[in-house]
């Protein structure tokens, strides 16, 4: 059962500092809405999900940067944001691992779902690709996110 949403006045206020990033998060939200409502005309089936993944990545990255790189938001706010679905905690957990600092999405490292039990093409470093061709992975449209790139 989904959580019951109360009207704003009954809800507990977000932690201190949320008002600073509220505008940016709202922009991400609008972008996400646009991407959700965008037409599928002329797109491949798997292409439709790309913007969703990309926006999720951007938003998670934004919050990750604010907390870990710039140290601009408090622990409470960070936890609150994760709890309320503003960022993907699993993706952020991967970014903390060496070699996954720029990971584009979780599907790209999910080896169980691929035919040859391997990661996505975007995880291959640019140097190891044959004749440096441009790639775009199926799951999120990433052009390459291995940490060596």
């Amino acid at each position, binding site marked *: 059962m989904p959580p019951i949403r109360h009207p704003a006045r009954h*809800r507990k206020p977000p932690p201190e500092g949320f008002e600073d990033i509220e505008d940016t998060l709202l922009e991400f939200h609008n972008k996400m809405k646009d991407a959700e409502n965008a037409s599928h005309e002329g797109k491949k089936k798997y292409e439709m999900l790309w913007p969703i993944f990309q926006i999720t990545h951007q938003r998670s990255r934004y919050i990750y940067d604010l907390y870990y790189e710039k140290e*601009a938001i408090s622990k409470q706010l960070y936890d609150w944001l994760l709890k309320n679905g503003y960022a993907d905690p699993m993706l952020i957990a991967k970014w903390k691992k060496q070699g996954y600092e720029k990971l584009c999405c979780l599907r790209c490292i999910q080896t169980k779902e691929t035919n040859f039990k391997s990661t996505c093409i975007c995880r291959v470093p640019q140097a190891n690709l044959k004749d440096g061709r441009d790639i775009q992975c199926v799951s999120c449209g990433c052009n390459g996110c291995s940490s060596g790139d």
Partner: protein
Amino acid sequence: MADLPARPTPGLPPLAPGWTEHKAPSGHMYYYNRETGKSTYMRPILEINSFNNLLAAPAVPLGPPGTFANYHPFDPLAAPTQFNPDPQQQFFQHGGHQQHNFPRGGSHHRGGHRGAHANFPDRRRQPDDRPKHRQDIPKCAPWVLVKTKLGRRFVWNRDTNESFWKFPPDVMKAVVDFDRIEREKKERRARGEPSDDEDSTMVEAEAEIAAAERDIEVEMADAEGDANMEGDDEYEEVEVTDNEGDHVESPSKRQRTEEPPEDHPLEMGEDDMAWQLAAMEGDYEDYDEEEEGLPLTEDDCKALFMELLDDVHINPYTPWDKILDDGILYDDERYKALPNMKARKECFGEWAKQKMQILKEQKAKQQKQDPRIPYLAFLHQLANPKLYWQEFRRKYKKEPEMKDPKFSDKDREKLYRDHIKRLGLTQQELKSDLSAMLKAQPLAALNRSTTLASLPPSVLTDLRFISLPASTRDPLVETYISMLPPAPEGAAESAEEEAEVAKKRAERERREKALAERERRVREEKRKQERELAFGKGRLREEEIEIERAMRVGKDGLRGQLDSFEDDRQER
């Protein structure tokens, strides 16, 4: 140069008399002589290679004015004066010149086989030479050693205003000594010993740069096979410290077999030199700085970019991609201070981090405003006994005071209801309440210097303050304030201190109370104990008496005993 007959640059040699300059429809310049009716693409100039044929005819410094003087755009007409670091003299010392080949001269009458092919590129390649550093030569008083931008050196006599590329023998000795000293200094510094003279180190650094520049020049010259380029042989004679000389020497020697080398291949005009030297005399420091150009370090670039970010007033919480999408940065010059996007992104990250910290500190400094203050002001304005709370909330739900997340809805409702209830009271009661409330304020918070706009929060958060309409309330409050004495000493920290003192006092009272309580309890306990003790003693005594009595069993036996009991009872 034949392929470029007319270069319409300023500083070309003057036209021969009778010739006029025109532009052809094709864009070429051509020259027309009205008297002879001839026209040509070749620029007819004053015949100056007459002196090419002058062999060893000293004292006729004819050559350079045409060539040198024309070179410098800012002083094209200067005639050779007595100030003449004189190439001519050197020409003749080298046995005269068949040809005058100034690589940059712009003269068409260069003649000879070493024609245009090598010379044109030189024109582009060689930057202007100018005097850059000046040092007094020790023990050789009026003479000054001047170093040019390209690292060449000449000597200048301050008194007679003469200058020579070729050092006169007496000066030569001093210069060699001077060079030795310089070299020693450099070595010492290389060994890590501190140099005593800052000035000299600077000069040396300068010299190194100059040498490096010259290396480049030489290499380029070699690559093109233009031996004539750097053939300053008199230069080599003095450059004791520099190995580069040998490098250049061989081509120039080869050169000498067919045509005597140029002593002065470079383009510096004498008059120009004079001008430069004058400038150096005047404001040496200033000039030098200008010459260097302001150095732009990496930090400067970063700082510039950060200033740009400051100036466009971006919110530091904005993501970098968004800023790029908006395209607010592109128009500014400072955007290009950093070489690539990665550097810019990094720089933005740093900047945002700093900014966020500053914002955080600012916010921490700002005292938090009680959310009740704006809400009560809002109620004072709009609350109406005709509206129930629900109606009121529905009506004004868009107002920021009604949406403040830090203040719960329940509190809002409670305040509203209380306020409405108070509105039903009579004016008299409300007034007395207000004055009671104002009287209760400590003097530190509310005193003569307080104005209506700067009332303490303890007043503003009180319901009694908003119960009266502003028209009746404000005069009341003002008159009350005017009656108050001025603020006590140290009123600045008043409110908090007062609160703290009150808190301390309360604490102390509480402690004292607690202590008294405990003492009372202890006393009670003690009394109880004493009583018990006394009781116990009494009991003990009674028992003792009984035992004593029991021991009094005499010969009369039980009877006597019983009697005695009866006696006792009677006694009691």
